[in-house]
């Protein structure tokens, strides 16, 4: 049998067990859309904007661990996908994005809808390919999935010139079972000597800290991390990207760290003598002013990407490897030795941490007449027993979601951490829904962010995608306003969103359910009603306190031990 390039593409996707592709048609991919029409293995979701396709594929991937797949046309289709590529790239999310390209003979002629997406996307993809011949198409796709999903995951672009998908040009097809790339061999296991050294150092700690990030989730190693932490009895903090990799309701979990993390996590980072960093990249939102970061700590760092080790901070025991492999090996070393942490200093350390916890740094005014954003998230967490998938956008609402929804499982918290892409939440929730037809899903967003991909409400209608949108509407680009309040003497330059739409009418026009909630007493009822409506998308427009701030906060240039706490905290019950 012989197949066209377009048919081969779908055969490859089928072989990769791709269930859904998110896409948008156009001239350069018409042959591909015609082949799509004639196959059944892969289901196509027609989005309303290519950015939505990338974020939906991304949400699908973050919630499953499988790669997300997109199909877009050349030129504007491809450029619209760039924000989604960059979002996935900074958070190490595996995507395979197929872009149409003008026919090979026309490349370089400024042809209609020609653009150099290979050049444009290069700095924000793990790798990209311009397919050069029909014969190489299948291997290229195999390589793309291999690269996207192994090592430190990331997005891969496959740019396919239109002539290579021509239905009249046909060749036999065989999908390579294995792929060997001499130039790409990501590390898996760490060096055993280093692993022993790491365990020794950990056991010698008097004030230990475990700082776990997104790499634990990407490496599917939450259970090993939890087992190791429990075995040692050490405090655990998570980055924004790591939330859920260690159960938030466990006593050893002391909250997120970094700019808007808990007081106790940041103080413990500052004071700790041994730090185990697992799948975390010492981001500047985490470290604060780097010269004051962890001044007393000897650092062990496990990361699959050698370039992330000692990039921002010196490391005593570097371990290049996959979190799962390395944590397994550490557990094995620990089970061979009967050495255990010295209980005396450890219990003193915990006492110290408990005194920091008593500051109650996330506390907010529970007696306010206004709806507090924290309350909405806290209630939602309570009503869903911490089991929902929560996507988010970027801003204050994102931080409130991270602080007040307690994730006990990995892959439930889905947000754009590294790039901070407003517009991510709604399409991401859509992607989560396709992967988890029966789960409870909410997108916690703000009136600013949600308008950046609002058009995807139409996609949701077309495919009967239902989830809840919790719009924490403060009428401000709140995060920007907060910074202006703190550092620009409250000069609210362009952070007020005038002329907001009537969100209820807007979502109703898309065929969904909308509600306005403006009293604290109505929050719980509205949430219950939305959760109960399984088959309708509900948009809850919460009119919240317009000037609530996210606390605590490490301001620019400050260290972990210099957090700004809520100045009104003594008034809160």
């Amino acid at each position, binding site marked *: 049998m012989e197949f066209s390039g377009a048919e081969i593409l779908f055969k490859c996707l089928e072989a990769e067990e791709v269930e859904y592709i998110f896409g948008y048609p156009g001239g350069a991919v018409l042959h591909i859309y015609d082949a799509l029409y004639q196959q059944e293995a892969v289901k196509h979701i027609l989005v309303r904007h290519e950015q939505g396709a990338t974020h939906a594929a991304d949400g699908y991937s973050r919630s499953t661990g499988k790669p997300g797949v997109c199909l877009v046309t050349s030129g504007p289709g491809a450029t619209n996908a760039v924000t989604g590529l960059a979002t996935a790239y900074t958070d190490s999310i595996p995507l395979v994005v197929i872009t149409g390209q003008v026919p090979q003979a026309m490349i370089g002629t400024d042809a209609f809808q020609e653009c150099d997406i290979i050049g444009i996307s290069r700095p924000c993809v793990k790798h990209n390919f311009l397919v*050069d011949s029909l014969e190489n198409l299948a291997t290229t796709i195999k390589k793309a999935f291999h690269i996207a999903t192994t090592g430190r995951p990331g997005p891969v672009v496959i740019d396919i010139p239109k002539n290579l998908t021509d239905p009249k040009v046909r060749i036999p097809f065989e999908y390579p079972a294995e792929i060997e790339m*001499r*130039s*790409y061999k990501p590390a898996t296991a760490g060096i055993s000597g280093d692993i022993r050294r790491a365990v020794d150092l950990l056991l010698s700690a008097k004030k230990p800290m475990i700082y776990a990030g997104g790499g634990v989730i990407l490496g599917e190693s939450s259970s090993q991390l939890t087992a190791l932490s429990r075995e040692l009895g050490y405090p655990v903090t998570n980055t924004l990207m790591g939330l859920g990799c260690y159960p938030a309701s466990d006593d050893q979990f002391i909250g997120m760290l970094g700019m808007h993390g808990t007081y106790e996590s940041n103080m413990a980072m500052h004071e700790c003598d041994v730090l185990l960093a697992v799948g975390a990249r010492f981001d500047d939102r985490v470290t604060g002013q780097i010269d004051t970061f962890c001044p007393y700590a000897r650092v062990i760092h496990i990361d699959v990407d050698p370039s992330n080790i000692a990039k921002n901070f010196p490391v005593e025991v570097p371990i290049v490897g996959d979190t799962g492999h390395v944590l397994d090996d550490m557990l094995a070393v620990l089970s061979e030795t009967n050495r255990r942490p010295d209980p005396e200093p450890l219990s003193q350390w915990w006492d110290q941490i408990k005194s920091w916890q008593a500051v109650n740094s996330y506390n907010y005014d529970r007696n306010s007449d206004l709806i507090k954003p924290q309350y909405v998230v806290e209630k939602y967490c309570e009503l869903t027993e911490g089991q929902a998938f929560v996507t988010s956008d970027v801003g204050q609402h994102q931080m409130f979601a991270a602080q007040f929804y307690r994730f006990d499982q990995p892959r439930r918290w889905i947000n754009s951490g590294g790039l901070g892409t407003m517009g991510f939440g709604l399409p991401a929730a859509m992607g989560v829904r396709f992967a988890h037809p029966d789960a409870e899903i909410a997108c916690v967003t703000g009136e600013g962010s949600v308008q950046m991909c609002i058009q995807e409400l139409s996609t949701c209608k077309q495919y009967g995608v239902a989830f809840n949108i919790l719009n924490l509407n403060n009428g401000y680009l709140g995060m920007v306003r907060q910074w202006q309040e703190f550092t620009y003497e409250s000069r609210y330059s362009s952070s007020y969103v005038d002329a907001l739409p009537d969100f209820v009418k807007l979502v109703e026009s898309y065929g969904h359910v909308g509600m306005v909630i403006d009293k604290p007493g109505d929050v719980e009822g509205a949430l219950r009603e939305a959760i109960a409506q399984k088959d309708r998308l509900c948009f809850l427009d919460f009119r919240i306190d317009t000037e609530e701030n996210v606390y605590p906060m490490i301001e620019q240039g400050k260290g972990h031990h210099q957090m700004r706490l809520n100045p009104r905290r003594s008034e809160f019950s």
Partner: protein
Amino acid sequence: MRHIISLLIENESGALSRVAGLYSARGYNIESLTVAPTDDPSLSRMTIVTYGNDTVVEQIAKQTDKLIDVVRLVTYTETPHVERELMMVKLRAVGSQREEATRLVAIFRGKIVDVTDSTYVVEVTGDSGKIDAFLAAVPSEQILEVVRSGVVGIARGESALKV
């Protein structure tokens, strides 16, 4: 400090722009970059001369090595190595300049590879210091054009950068 990074990269279209793009995106210095296919035509050998302190250069090497197309990479900082650069320089050569130039070329063990009534093209090979010294020795008004290849380097002894 000056460092030399040598690498083997898949000889595919776009490979050079991946390296060049990485350096500009991350703000790394490139003093020179040379690239050409090796005896194995599927591989290109690249030599990059860069500046930075040890931590910076370690990052540069790791980030470069991370590029999917890079097969192998070494940094010749500690390693004893030989480095060479080739220069061709077009000199004004009239009257007494002709003899002066010939003498200088002999001292630097260069070659005159093109001769006209009024010009010489001189080829000089050596490490960058020697080439700089040659240029300094020629009166500047005599220099019409300079082209330098950039540095290539190789380790001394047994160690070999091969697949």
